[in-house]
């Protein structure tokens, strides 16, 4: 049985993929995560007890993360900015509902993802009503359909890395074109760098469900990328 490295030890894509970056920080990511969670909790407690001066430090340290998530889920920077602001407002309005049972970052991410999914669904509804056929949902994809999609893929999709930002943007475009649930889980994993347990907590589903959804989401993304490559 192959050995899997600890998820917390693996490079977190959202926080820097190169191993030397992680090494350079001299702090185990797990410890860093705990310290960040503790600091979040401290700031939230101050806010909940009426100290408005804690808003700045709390939101300032998290707004980039929220924006990055929104940016991957929507098509343009301006919309991402608006969504980020919406999420921030929601965090402010709901702060007294945060009870500390989950990490603040998890709670925040859940709000972010749900808001983005809601936005994407509305967009897709509009698009469906006006222009194009809906993107084929691959949430219920079976082995057979996955096999079929593998057969259909183009050759130049093989042997490739991230060769250019153009290609990266194509992947980003494909991410936005697939089902919002798939977009969300891929964003949590690949953009935010959450591990399975954190994703499970954020999405409030079992870890096993996260794994299966993530697999289907990757397959859906790949299929969409290849479709876009074919279209040129």
């Amino acid at each position, binding site marked *: *049985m*192959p*050995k*899997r*490295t600890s*998820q917390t030890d693996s490079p977190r*894509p*959202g926080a*820097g*993929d190169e191993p030397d970056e992680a090494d350079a920080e001299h702090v185990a990511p797990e410890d860093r995560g705990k310290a960040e969670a503790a600091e979040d909790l401290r700031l939230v407690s101050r*806010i909940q007890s*009426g*100290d*408005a*001066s804690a*808003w*700045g430090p709390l*939101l*300032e340290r998290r707004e*980039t993360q929220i*924006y*990055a998530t929104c*940016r*991957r889920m929507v098509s343009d920077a301006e919309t991402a*900015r608006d969504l*980020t*602001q919406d999420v921030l*407002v929601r965090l*402010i*309005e709901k*702060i007294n509902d945060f009870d500390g049972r989950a990490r603040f970052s998890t709670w925040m991410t859940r709000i972010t993802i749900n808001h983005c999914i809601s936005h994407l669904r509305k967009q897709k509804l509009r698009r469906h009503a006006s222009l194009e056929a809906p993107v084929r949902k691959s949430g219920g994809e*079976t*082995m057979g359909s*996955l096999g079929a999609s*593998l*057969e259909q*893929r183009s050759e130049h*999709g093989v042997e*490739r890395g*991230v060769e250019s*930002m153009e*290609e*990266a*943007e194509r*992947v*980003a475009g494909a991410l936005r074109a697939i089902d919002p649930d798939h977009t969300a889980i891929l964003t949590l994993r*690949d*953009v*935010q*760098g959450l*591990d*399975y*347990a954190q994703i499970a907590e954020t999405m409030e589903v079992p*870890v*096993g469900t996260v*794994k*299966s959804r993530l*697999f289907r989401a*990757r397959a859906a993304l*790949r299929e969409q990328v290849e479709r876009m490559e074919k279209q040129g």
Partner: protein
Amino acid sequence: MSHGSEPHSTPEPGPGAGVSQDELMAWIEGELDAASASDVEARLSADPELHAWARATRADRLALAVLARRDAALAPRGLWRDALGEAERRALLAEEAVTGRAASAPVVFRITPARLVAAAALLIVASLGAIAPFLTGGASPGQPGPAALAPGADRGAAAGDDRDVDVASAESERPAPPAPSARPGDGASAAEQLAQAAAPDRREPDETTRAFAFNSAELAAGPPRTPSVRTLLASHHAADPNGIVAGRAVAGPLMSGYRNLSASLEPRRRPMPGAFPDAWGMTLSDAQRLASEHRLAIAVAADDPGDYLEELLAALGRRAVVVSPGAPSDRNGVSAPVELLVSAPVEKTERALRVCAIGARSVRLGALPPRSRPGDWASEALWWTASDRRDGLIRVFIAPR
């Protein structure tokens, strides 16, 4: 996290490769140690198609990670400040929707039995006063004639009753404030007596509170011990010259409705970014400096803003300009609620023009932005000031209680 024991429900990646879905995912995500990764890769190579797919999928993941780093680097900063302002505005609107209905309803002068009795009594007194000179042998030079005793006559008689009250020249029209020693029935004008009858519970205005806020002794002496919107308003309590108090407290909902944002109010110190200064006790020099920096907006809600206007403009070195005069007081001495927003300075920008549309009775409805609610001037004024993108815009609300 255990690996490989998972999900029977998830599809196998492909026949013949001998690689489970979990192994494939772990390989794609770079979660395997080197030996395990080599092992999986060797097995994947038995299925070139699947191998190619896995590599492409791995590249997809890497692409998203690259973009995530770029996004983080390009992320706009400081969005949270706007978010705080928006949250504040929503809180205000929500609270006003619940508690402010009465306050936002037009204040009309209602004729009640008690007022009728009081008015009748005053008319009798006035009539007796008017005929007293004849009964006692002639009018004394210092006594006003009957016409001067009519409510509002002290305002309009000199210039003619039909002229509009122009707030810009309000000072010339503004009646002299009552002497501090004035008592009901003791040399008080008919208008004052009427006012006292109509508002029996109001506090006696004194010279300190009648003066423009920034000159108040309290603020000049230093910050109050417990700075808050309410203490600020209390120091500015002043009755209309006609004695009618509209009863609006503009900033009250801000304080009570959003304690988290209001808690950091501290006079004489610029609040930290994001801690929105709902109202800010400040010295005159502070106000002048902020006005000169174009960072001062003042909303005045008063029965007769003309009372405040000239003092306000003079205090700010004429840098503040009235952008929405609202409705002037009526000419009968019974003032309708009048609101205005003073901004420093008036700029010929879209935003400033929009601000111009704020006012209880503004007729410039065509300039209202979509979010405006005509008539709900306080919400609008606060919305525009709260959503101002410039840092440190200071708002001072002056309202009678």
